[in-house]
């Protein structure tokens, strides 16, 4: 009787609705981006201004919503953390009268320490990576094939948990140093071969 009553109640409860606000996934990914800063050493030219902020950029259709709100009052390595959002590459190209590489937003992107490439930029990943090569930017995405396209860190979901994979060749190309602790936590560490393919 007890069990039957309990089952009746549990079965008649209204079904849950889908999430409406910023998803937990992107709240978590925002915190990962913030955490990555602690495991990366940038080249000197990127850290010459000791008091300058550490900039996390988001390019494309921003899925984070207000997920970065708590960062406003936080410091990492003694520096403030600033979030900057940028239009997608296609839109930037369309709005550029001269060559889009001189677009002020591209200039601002080059100043970022971390750049999250949104899935809306899937078609433009290689172009974005090539554009920023040598600028000392940690490029992060959550797009299949992001590492193969030259990205540095890619998020993957595994059983509702956020995991990440790292392209160490891209790390070197961006003149970054990555701590072994982060490498150990990666689900997959990819090293590009000089000519073809990769090993992981």
């Amino acid at each position, binding site marked *: 009787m*007890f*069990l039957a009553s309990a*089952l009746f*109640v549990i079965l008649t*409860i209204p079904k*849950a609705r889908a999430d409406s606000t910023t998803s937990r996934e992107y709240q*978590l990914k925002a915190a990962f981006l913030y955490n990555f800063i602690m495991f990366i050493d940038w080249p000197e030219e990127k850290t010459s201004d000791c008091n300058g902020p550490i900039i996390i950029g988001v390019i494309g259709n921003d899925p984070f919503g207000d997920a970065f709100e708590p960062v406003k009052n936080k410091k990492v390595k003694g520096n403030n953390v600033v979030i900057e959002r940028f239009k997608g590459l296609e839109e930037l190209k369309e709005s550029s009268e001269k060559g889009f590489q001189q677009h002020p937003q591209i200039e601002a992107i080059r100043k970022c320490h971390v750049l999250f490439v949104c899935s809306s930029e899937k078609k433009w990943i290689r172009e974005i990576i090539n554009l920023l090569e040598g600028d000392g930017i940690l490029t992060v995405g959550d797009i299949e094939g992001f590492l193969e396209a030259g990205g540095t860190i890619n998020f993957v979901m595994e059983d509702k948990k956020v995991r990440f994979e790292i392209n160490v060749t891209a790390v070197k190309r961006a003149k970054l140093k990555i701590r*072994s602790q982060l490498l150990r936590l990666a689900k997959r560490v990819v090293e590009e071969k000089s000519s073809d393919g990769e090993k992981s």
Partner: protein
Amino acid sequence: MSSRGDVLTGKFIFVLMLLVLFGSDARLLAEQQDANNKKDFFEMSIEELMEVPIVVSASRLPTRLQYLSAPVTVITAEDIHYSGLTTIPEILQFSPGVDVRRLDRQRYIVGVRGLFGIYSDRTLVLIDGRAVTIPIYGTTHWENLPVLMEDIERIEIVRGPVGASWGANAFTGAINIITKKPNQCLGGLVSTTVNEFGDTFTHLRYGHTQGQWSWKVSAGYEDVEDSDAAGAGKYTSGVPALNTLMGFDSFKARDWGRFWKFDTQAEYRVNEQTRWSFGAAHSSGQEGDFEFIGVYPRRDILTEYTRMFGRLDHQFDEDTSAYIQWFGNYLDNHRRVITDRTTHLQNDLEAQINFKPADNHTASVGGNVRWDRISAHNNSSTNEFMFDRGEYNEYWTGLFLIDRWAVTERFTLEGQLRLDHYSATTTDWSNRFTALYALDEQQNHVVRASFARAFRSPTVAVRRGSSSYLQAPVVGGLFVTQPHAGNTLDNEGTYSFEAGYTGRLAENLSLNVDTYYQRMERLIGVRSVTDPATTVTTSTFNNVNGADSWGAETSLAWQYKTVKISAWYAYNDLVTDEFAQITRSMSPSQHKAGLNSRWYLDKDWTFNTNYVFQNGKRMYATVVKDLSSFNRLDLTLSRKFAEGKGELIVGVSDVLNETTDPVTDTGYLTALETPGRMFFIRLQLRF
């Protein structure tokens, strides 16, 4: 007086009313309070974000599970939640190498790798690294701990001696209950559980963060009916010859309990480097009493237990961090079955600094000073356990040094060394040396070899207490319990050799194997001598003799998409040097096996199973006490609603109804049959 059925019906209707009341408004609440319910992920480390198990109990340093210097099982908050269980010992029994037996509806005996009993503190129990075990009797009052199940972040069970990290009494292992920090439980929680016997467990919590402050307040009430009311409660006697004298035939189960519990914690983040945290917890309990050495006064047990702490954490730089902490425990215990009133005041001040003394080294240095003030108010009744007159103080100071040296990318050495001085006993030391080697470059396969030494300090009761009465004939003569002459009991000592393997066999498949041999010396027990002239048998607490312990624990965990399954088997054996040697504790069940699974059926439905088998064992004490074999299977089905803000769990524990057999612990002449199979329902709302 209401019948058991009336009580049950009333409580069940109460839960249904709550469901109707809150269920209709839950969606609204969920939407209104969504902002408050967000976790502050930015306060979490990357390991925490990844939900990578990080363990602190093996070496006081946060360390990944694969690289631990001692074998550790972690019970997560999710494991606790979906088990539907309402007590800590019940969830512990589903872990490898842990022996758990239920004495009655309130009291459990728990031990890692054996030698467990209600007065055996050979497994150290901690909450957030702070002592729990009461040093007077060496008892952990599980039912009185002011911690609520939903407030537990994880439980770390360390198997093997870890005295080098925690000091005395981490002899066969340690159990560290890690509670959720305020920023891990923002928003509100209402949870109530009722079972078919009419027991209720209610928990309210609210956590909030504002500016640099975050805090949480938890309150709970637990009401457990006695075994008689739950359809069991039949006493059995270990010594039929004493039945008349003890009034055995008139015994009634009085193992009911009512407990109020409160726990509050606050954190103040001064800046990115500095954090203060404070906490105060209290439990107020009233229980029926039980027989002890033939005494059964039928007076309720009243226990007030308060725990407080203050802690300052500071990060000096990337590699250097430190904390200083004070904690105080205060116990006021009226337990007429043992002594009229016992109070215990404990103050502990400890500090630890973590730093990098050289490349590839991570070190921790620290120590503590502890003051225990004990008083027992005897009322001169002859039926009491007597202590030395007056109040007295005991002091403990400890110093530890831990160094972890990454010799190469794949080879790590860890050394732990600790020195402890006890004012009432002696100075002693502990260590643990471990070598860890990764068999492959990806470090998916890690082997471990360890040597450890630890000790156990004799409890106050066996050093300064005595039973004040004569007992009727047990074996041919009168039985008198007396303290050890001259208060000169030595510490128990132990050392162990261990080897283990932790491996990731495939993407979602992991395997752990741990083996050990442990030698124990100078085990404190009871030595009985019969005077042939008077036929009086005198029993004294003594360092009787040693024991050998050996075994292996292995677990296989598989996780694929929406299914998590772990299977384990433990072989734990222990043989004392003397036949029928009394250690005032029980040996481990030799064979233990378990199977735990969780099925996330869809976004809202979760099915959980926990199974454990423990085989029987013959125990030799004053009388032979057998532990029976049992299989236990628990099932729960959970459904979330209102966007996950509401949850209903229905379950049945001990489906097979095999845990009813009486368990006679050390010092008891009787045991009580307890109810086994139990249906329950839980409603939980978050806002």
